[in-house]
């Protein structure tokens, strides 16, 4: 699961994205930061951010490690995710399986997630229990037990998770094969985060402990606290619980470059469990941290005007025309390395795959030739930023956005001022980004088809 600036907002705001009201409020001398996060670093290298929240007497902790599925060792996809599971199997001060129980006993909840770029652990509790969750999280950073005797039962859980999420769902199986076709089954970007089944089965305790030793160092982590706790109290408690963890060398991300061409430029998959066809196409694309970074924000605008729902070019040409049930594009520039710009479309019954693909390609070709209009770019910027401040409603979105940004090496300003940055994107930049990616970047086009 990925939770970054765009997706957090998308889930937080459903239909709406971000506010012209904000753009207006933000226009005078300097735009105001979205969250007003405080940001500092401990002597051992741990990066800390604090976002005040006063609606209810509660606090949340998110600890992000700058290592996700993409950091899995060769031939051992799934290590980052398996380790996430095993982090709940005890540390010196917390018994096996007690972490969640102790949080729940105080009325709190906790969970964790692994994305391509990060592994993150989070809890929410009543504000007076901040010390407890900091102490337990710091304890497993310093010395997770990863007990061998619980490895096999948890491997069973992970394999069942893989079956549930992927193997028992034809669309999920197709998406997994599609990503592997573009990047390669053993490329960091082409492997599933949960891991290939045979590789999950091969993961040893040494693989997990090795990943923890390499990546779970204070200097490789970002701690985000949000809640109704005074800042000096947060600083004191963070020092108390995390300050004593010794500094140690943290492995840097070491990603292979993107392949110069798609491994399989075309993939056709027939699946007996599928009832309706699905078209996917993805181009390798730069992000805010890799490749031609200047294209990243313009690509977000491009994705909105090309395939961001009703009013977008693909929606008009494919959905409103009656060719497709749905059609859209996606792009997320918040990534630690190269990423993807993707398109998906489902044909209406009776529309052949050829006809739909041709129509989609036609829309893209026109956009490359003529570029977007000023009005389209202005509309997209308005709609992308209109609901930015809705991220203040609730206390999960802010720490996810801040932690996600900091742990891929971007500065805090990248998230605090993202509405102003998106608003500064010009039509010419969107056109340049479209021309840099869509005509020539390595890409894969794929069809999922019913078998009969």
């Amino acid at each position: 699961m990925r939770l970054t600036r765009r997706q957090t907002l998308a889930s937080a705001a459903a239909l709406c994205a971000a506010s012209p009201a904000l753009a207006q409020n933000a226009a005078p001398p300097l735009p105001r930061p979205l969250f007003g996060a405080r940001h500092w670093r401990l002597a051992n290298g741990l990066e800390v951010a604090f976002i005040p929240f006063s609606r209810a007497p509660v606090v949340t902790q998110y600890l992000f490690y700058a290592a996700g599925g993409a950091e899995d060792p060769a031939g051992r996809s799934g290590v980052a995710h398996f380790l996430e599971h095993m982090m709940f199997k005890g540390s010196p001060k917390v018994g096996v399986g007690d972490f969640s129980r102790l949080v729940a006993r105080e009325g709190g909840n906790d969970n964790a997630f692994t994305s391509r770029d990060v592994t993150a652990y989070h809890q929410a509790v009543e504000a007076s229990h901040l010390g407890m969750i900091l102490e337990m999280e710091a304890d497993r950073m310093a010395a997770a037990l990863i007990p061998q005797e619980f490895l096999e039962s948890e491997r069973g859980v992970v394999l069942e998770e893989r079956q549930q999420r992927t193997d028992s769902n034809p669309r999920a199986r197709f998406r997994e094969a599609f990503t592997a076709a573009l990047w390669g089954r053993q490329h960091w970007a082409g492997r599933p985060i949960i891991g290939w089944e045979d590789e999950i089965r091969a993961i040893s305790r040494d693989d997990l402990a090795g990943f923890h030793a390499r990546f779970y160092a204070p200097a490789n982590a970002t701690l985000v606290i949000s809640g109704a706790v005074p800042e000096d109290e947060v600083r004191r408690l963070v020092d108390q619980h995390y300050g004593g963890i010794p500094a140690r060398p943290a492995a840097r991300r070491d990603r292979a470059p993107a392949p110069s061409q798609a491994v399989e430029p075309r993939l056709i998959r027939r699946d007996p469990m599928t009832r309706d066809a699905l078209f996917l196409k993805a181009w390798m694309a730069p992000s805010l941290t890799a490749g031609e970074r200047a294209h990243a924000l313009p690509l977000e605008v491009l994705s909105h005007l090309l395939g961001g729902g009703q009013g977008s070019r693909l929606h008009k040409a494919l959905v409103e025309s009656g060719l497709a049930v749905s059609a859209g594009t996606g792009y997320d520039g918040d990534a630690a390395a190269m990423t993807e710009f993707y398109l998906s479309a489902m044909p209406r019954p009776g529309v052949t795959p050829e006809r739909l693909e041709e129509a989609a390609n036609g829309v893209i070709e026109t956009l490359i030739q003529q570029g977007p209009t000023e009005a389209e770019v202005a509309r997209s910027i308005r709609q992308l930023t209109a609901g930015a401040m809705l991220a203040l409603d609730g206390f999960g979105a802010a720490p996810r956005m801040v932690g996600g940004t900091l742990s891929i090496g971007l500065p805090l300003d990248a998230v605090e001022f993202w509405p102003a940055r998106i608003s500064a994107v010009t039509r010419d930049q969107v056109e340049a980004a479209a021309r840099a990616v869509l005509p020539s970047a390595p890409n894969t086009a794929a069809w999922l088809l019913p078998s009969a």
Partner: protein
Amino acid sequence: MSTPFRLPIQRVVAHGLTAWLVEDHSVPVVSLSWSWPGGAAFDAPGREGTASLAAALLTEGAGDLPAAAFTDALRDAGIGLSFGAGRDDVDGGFRCLIDALPEAERLARLAMTAPRLDQAAIERLRARAIAGARQSLETPRGQAGRAFWAAAFPTHAAGRPSGGTAESLAAITPDDLRGQLGRQLRREGLTIAAAGAIRPDDLAALLRRLFAELPAGSPAAPPALPVFTSFGQRVIGMDSPQSQAIFGHEGIGARDPQFEAAQIVLRIFGGGGFSSRLTESVRVKRGLTYGIGVGLDTGFGGGVLVGSVASDNGKIAEALAVTRDEWARMAADGPTDAEMAEAVAFLTGSLALQFTDSRRIANTLMAMQRNGRPLDWLDGRSERLRAISRDDAARMARRLLKPEALSVTVAGRPVGL
């Protein structure tokens, strides 16, 4: 011991409408939620999905704004406005920044009073709904769920898919949709809740402007939930490496006088989080599943106790056997004192966490009203929960859990079932 958390809920009355409000100006956001009884309960046989399709069409063009213009108006102002139909109700709601509140009000009113129901929009949404209905049957989860409810309630709306099927959606006419909305969108019968940066007086005025133009009268009440039809075990064969099981039996409704004792029992037995008996036995100890849970699914004034688990085809029989054993053990012995203490601590301590975002607050207020709770229900909740003894909980466990009555659907290629 957690600090007691009190939530000041206000009752706002205007023009015959009543809304519950949690006012909070710390964030410049307002959420408003409302609902009517009805929904898919009144879909004509063979036209399942009518209420659902009609509700979705409300934001696909209204007044002089065709679909694309209506959507642009919402997105330009960052307004999240939506309508949906459940099995026994239709709900609407929006969330927006306070600067966008007048526009949210205008568009919500327009959607309810002057939906266009343009033919193109109907066909576009119908195609989307049909694709969704077909895709839901591509997975064991979708198949097992569909079969479970159909078998448990063969002659009642609770047994039919509220989103419709490919066939029923194809049969729905524009007149069906207009008729549904005409019966549903009324000035009376509304349940309303608001949360966020809005004062009671402003909310009262907003309610009047938003709902006053709707036709008088109240939608009809959906038919009460009939007795759960026990059906034993059914296997739906489909090619999948993993089998999905849905299991359950008759439950209790949210207005049951001992509902809070049931909440404690279910928290211990199969509730959320990572520490229930079922999670411990089936997931943690044996590694048979990624997740297992059981809860009360309340609706139509009643309730069904229902759970789900997915396991490898070769392991699902064991997962279900362990589940049945736990079912019988909890029914026979009830929870332990230690389990009681932890569950009550969680249920009392977690209250504040439900009041962090405005939509969630509004939804909590909606549920309280639907379940007939008094305004100060939450204030006394911790004390009521602590007063429930282990014996009370054991009695509830005996009453609620009936291992011999379990009905199960399994989709996949299960071995040994």
